[in-house]
């Protein structure tokens, strides 16, 4: 069933479920199906409309697709070599395995995959609008209750475990509440209010909700990821720039570090050259390395990417167009909620995490999981979280009819101690000023991070007192609080890691530290405690 788009005002919705999934991107969809197949009664609550919301729906994403066989371990090893030593081969292998099973399920269900030159189904790529529309159909078919336009604002707890969540119908402002045996956060990464593809709802509220329940975060320093886009657009898709050359407005070629004309915006060291060029002045590109059939493949294979050019009436293969690097926060960054158990439990009883809301250090390490690894991770982690949550709910028994001690956990942005006088837009602008600029976040420094932390700590203190809203106006302040909290964790992790590794670049510590690779676990919403996990602790965790 789905809810009507116009629920009458002030009619609160109260539901009970075995498993509540928060978020309707691919991870939430796979989690809902897995929990349902495990016998659970499932509710899925989406901030937007399940099928169009999130970063996948408007995109075209590869997967990390490696068929079973001898080559799999080699593929994992090759990928691991690129992860800055942070990833975990066991997790990588099981992600490849589980996500491959998911792709086969899609084929069985009749998802319209293309065929390769040999006539076999090509299952390694998913077209976002088609994929997420298809997944909505599968989830409804599985009997899941879908609540569209029902953002969650906070988790519920009985003191021992997470027992549900509460939020609002964003149309009417009415309250909803779902009591559940277990909750899965599939709320996506945090895009820090950047206008990138499908990212406006990705505001870090899931991270904040979980942290309020006592969950830890990890990998938040691996967030210096930026992707090229035509200037002023949402199209942060790197693939076409593989065939780009880069110029100044007058057509003068920009030179790379070796004095050659700068080409291929996604390869090798070109990213650093583009950053340097952008810090000096506006940069223009032209996709003039795409010749012959490539132009046709780009037009037909990446129709979303072509939209800015179509609409501006320019030919990207012949004309120069201005570009920018868009910051991608934890969406293409790696950080998120720390996973404590093999079934994607957070360590807080009853609370599971899937997709980009989770730290992807185990599969992507210190580098970006891009679309491919993150897309496979969404399938695999969604599946495990769905099974884990269903199993937890079964052990715990049906939600008791009268739960006397259930309490909501939400605080900042939701229950200010004083007035509602802090404008969430000002909070969002202040966050962006610290985490978006290339010279603050692509290239970090200890001094710059400390300044940013101090400024955002000040805003956090004001938010505790003055950030909140009424009715449907409760969503924005809570989103602002989520992004602000995520930014503070990101900065804390970045300050703690006194080295450069992958997406974390410190001008004052330009090299990786020799010796065992560490992870930085962050705990706490107000005061952030940083716990250093050595390589030993990490591998023990993986083995348990």
């Amino acid at each position, binding site marked *: 069933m789905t809810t009507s788009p116009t629920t009458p005002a002030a009619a609160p919705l109260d539901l009970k479920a075995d498993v509540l999934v928060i978020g309707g991107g691919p991870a939430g969809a796979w989690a809902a199906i897995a929990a349902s197949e495990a016998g659970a009664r499932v509710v899925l609550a989406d901030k937007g*409309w399940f099928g169009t919301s999130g970063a996948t*729906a408007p995109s075209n994403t590869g997967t990390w697709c490696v068929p079973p066989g001898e080559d799999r371990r080699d593929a994992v090893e090759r990928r691991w070599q690129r992860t800055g030593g942070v990833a975990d081969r066991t997790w990588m292998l099981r992600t490849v395995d589980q996500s491959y099973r998911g792709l086969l399920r899609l084929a069985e269900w009749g*998802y319209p995959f293309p065929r390769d030159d040999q006539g076999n189904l090509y299952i390694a790529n998913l077209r976002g609008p088609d994929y997420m529309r298809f997944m909505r159909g599968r989830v409804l078919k599985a009997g899941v209750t879908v609540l569209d336009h029902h953002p969650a604002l906070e988790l519920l707890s009985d003191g021992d475990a997470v027992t549900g969540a509460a939020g609002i119908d*964003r149309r009417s402002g009415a309250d909803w509440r779902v009591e559940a045996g277990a909750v899965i956060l599939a709320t996506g990464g945090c895009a820090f209010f950047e206008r990138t593809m499908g990212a406006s709802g990705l505001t870090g509220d899931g991270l904040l909700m979980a942290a309020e329940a006592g969950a830890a975060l990890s990998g938040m320093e691996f967030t210096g990821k930026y992707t090229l886009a035509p200037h002023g657009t949402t199209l942060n898709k790197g693939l076409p720039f593989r065939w780009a050359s880069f110029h100044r407005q007058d057509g003068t070629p920009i030179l790379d570090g070796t004095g050659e004309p700068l080409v291929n915006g996604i390869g090798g060291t070109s990213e650093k050259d583009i950053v340097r060029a952008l810090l000096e002045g506006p940069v223009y590109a032209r996709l003039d390395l795409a010749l012959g*059939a490539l132009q046709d493949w780009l037009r*037909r294979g*990446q129709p979303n990417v072509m939209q800015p050019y179509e*609409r501006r009436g320019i030919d990207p293969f012949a004309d120069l167009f201005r570009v920018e690097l868009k910051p991608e926060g934890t969406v293409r960054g790696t950080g998120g909620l720390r996973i404590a158990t093999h079934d994607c439990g957070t360590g807080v009883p009853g609370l599971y995490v899937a997709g980009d809301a989770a730290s992807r250090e185990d599969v992507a390490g210190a580098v970006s999981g891009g679309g491919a690894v993150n897309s496979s991770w969404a399938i695999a982690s969604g599946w495990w979280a769905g099974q884990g949550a269903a199993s937890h709910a079964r052990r715990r028994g049906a939600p008791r009819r009268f739960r006397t001690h259930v309490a909501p956990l939400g605080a900042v942005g939701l229950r200010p101690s004083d007035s509602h006088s802090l404008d969430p837009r000002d909070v969002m602008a202040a966050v962006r000023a610290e985490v978006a600029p290339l010279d603050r976040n692509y290239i970090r420094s200890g001094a710059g991070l400390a300044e940013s932390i101090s400024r955002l700590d000040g805003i956090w203190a004001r938010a505790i007192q003055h950030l909140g809203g009424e009715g449907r106006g409760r969503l924005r302040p809570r989103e602002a609080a989520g992004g602000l909290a995520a930014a503070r964790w990101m900065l804390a992790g970045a300050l703690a890691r006194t080295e450069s590794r992958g997406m974390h670049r410190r001008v004052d510590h330009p090299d990786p530290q020799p010796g065992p690779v560490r992870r930085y676990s962050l705990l706490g919403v107000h005061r952030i405690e940083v716990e250093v996990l050595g390589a030993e602790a990490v591998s023990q965790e993986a083995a348990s």
Partner: protein
Amino acid sequence: MIEVVSSARCIRCDICVRVCPADVFRKDAAGLPVIAHQDDCQTCFLCEIYCPTDALYVAEAADGPIGITESEVEARDLFGVYARGLGWSKGRAGGSQFDTTQHLRVAQV
């Protein structure tokens, strides 16, 4: 962001009001979708492809409207341009089996 709702093309089906992930539209008294929260638009172009009559136009600029008019969109044949690129038609999904991205993945290496 979303800039044009063509009242001539629109059949008042409400699909855009329902499927917009950022909850941008509202129905007016006559049942026509109106752009109620334009600045919330995330410029994902998905309302366009779900529209069964290609009645919506989302300009490519993410940060604010560019002021494009319905007649310009019509004259430049931009209604439904993304749906045609994908192979979606009349609000129905289609065309993913003709996706050429596999060739790009091979060529990008």
